[in-house]
């Protein structure tokens, strides 16, 4: 059958890969931390933000989360720090700051 969900690649034998070219876990990429890539990250000034949602719309990674209160929050697990959101924010409510030293 297709690859079992719990096994790591190094544990998979050919017996697990009869249908190895069919992958049955849709959206499994959500476990991949692209947030490690960035050297700068977006910060939202809620005073200026008008909840227009354009930052969410224009993010190539879908790395901005719509919150229940209507605001939009960058998801730092995924955010690659490309800097598009400040470019498209009509209120200039987003600033890119240097990623902190870990």
């Amino acid at each position, binding site marked *: 059958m297709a690859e079992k969900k719990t096994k790591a690649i190094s544990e998979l034998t*050919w017996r*697990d890969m*009869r249908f*190895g*070219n069919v992958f049955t876990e*849709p959206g499994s990429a959500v476990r991949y931390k692209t947030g490690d890539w960035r050297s700068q990250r977006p910060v939202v000034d809620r005073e200026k933000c008008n909840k227009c949602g354009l930052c969410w719309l224009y993010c190539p990674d879908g790395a901005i989360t719509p919150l229940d209160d209507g605001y939009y929050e960058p998801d730092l697990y995924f955010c690659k720090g490309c800097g598009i959101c400040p470019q498209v924010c009509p209120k200039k409510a987003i600033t890119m700051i240097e990623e902190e030293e870990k």
Partner: protein
Amino acid sequence: MSKRIALEGSFAAAEAARMADVDVIAAYPITPQTHIIERLADYVANGELKASYIPVESEHSAMSACYGASAAGARTFTATASQGFFLMHEVLHWVSAMRQPVIMAVCNRAVAPPANIWGDYSDAMTARDTGWIQLFAVNNQEVFDFVLSSFRIGEDPRVLLPVMVHLDGFTLSHVVEPVILPEQEEVNRFLPPYQHPYAIDPDNPMSYSMVMGPGIYAEIKKAQDVTLRESKEIILQAWKEFGDIFGRYYSPIESYKTEGAKTLLMSTGCLSETAKVAIDRKRDKGEDVGLIILHLWRPFPFEELYQAIKDAETLVVFDRCISLGGPGGPIISEVKSALFDKRKDIKFAGLIGGLCGRNLSVEQFEDALDKGREIAEKGSEEVFETIGIRE
């Protein structure tokens, strides 16, 4: 009541696809396959077959569309030959690795250049490593029976692999022979509906083929290889069921008058019937010769080969294809390699002939046996010898 009618090989193949109620046909014309796709187009145009007929713009697209259709859950069929077969080559790997039971008739035709339209196996042999199940038909009855049983074999949940049925270009595709056609009810009993466990389904989304690297590729290919080898059991089972319903039983290697034969000739495809007559004549003269015919090419029938030659001392293999710069013809070299492990004792000779539709007579097959026996006994300077080729 089954009926016995005169059919050329192409029409036999088309009729088998019609009776199997294929859903999608994507094909591009190439001599000598054209009659297959023309007949199917007729069936669809007259409502005798309800199928989506896609007249694609190249063979590469033909196999691509067949793959897509099969992945979506449709029973698919196509046909091609030679240059078209080569053009779809990369897609052949795709179909088998993705475990889709596309069925294809290949009207074997020699590779160009020189430009030609006549038959030999130089097209088929380039697909040896593509992971398809491959059968060679000897006559039009077998063309019909193999195409029909291929659906049963390929679609079996334990197999789910594509199947090629090879038939000699012109000498089978365009020659009229008597063919017994079964009742539709019998076909329906033999062939269950096609159901793929991983058919594309928006309600159950999957990713079909991802990027994989050194860490996992080998395991996938080994799994594919094991599945192909294990399919032989299902092929045997399907052919038993076929025989039980339709009365004709097939096996991966067919033995003809091999009892007590110390020298065996091995052949493939339609020239096997000429070889049969040569064997008859030789046996009438008191020679202990016999014929074995290779029907199943992939997965290679090792056990059946060893069984068929168990009492023989000499094996002469006739190949209808040349492998340039290699160890003889493809069939010759594979049989030789298979013998290396189990029958180092056997005397062996390989003969190549019949290229590009050049016919071989009964006398030439008798000579082939004599020549083969001599070479097997004394050895040869050449990597392979030829029959009927002007040296």
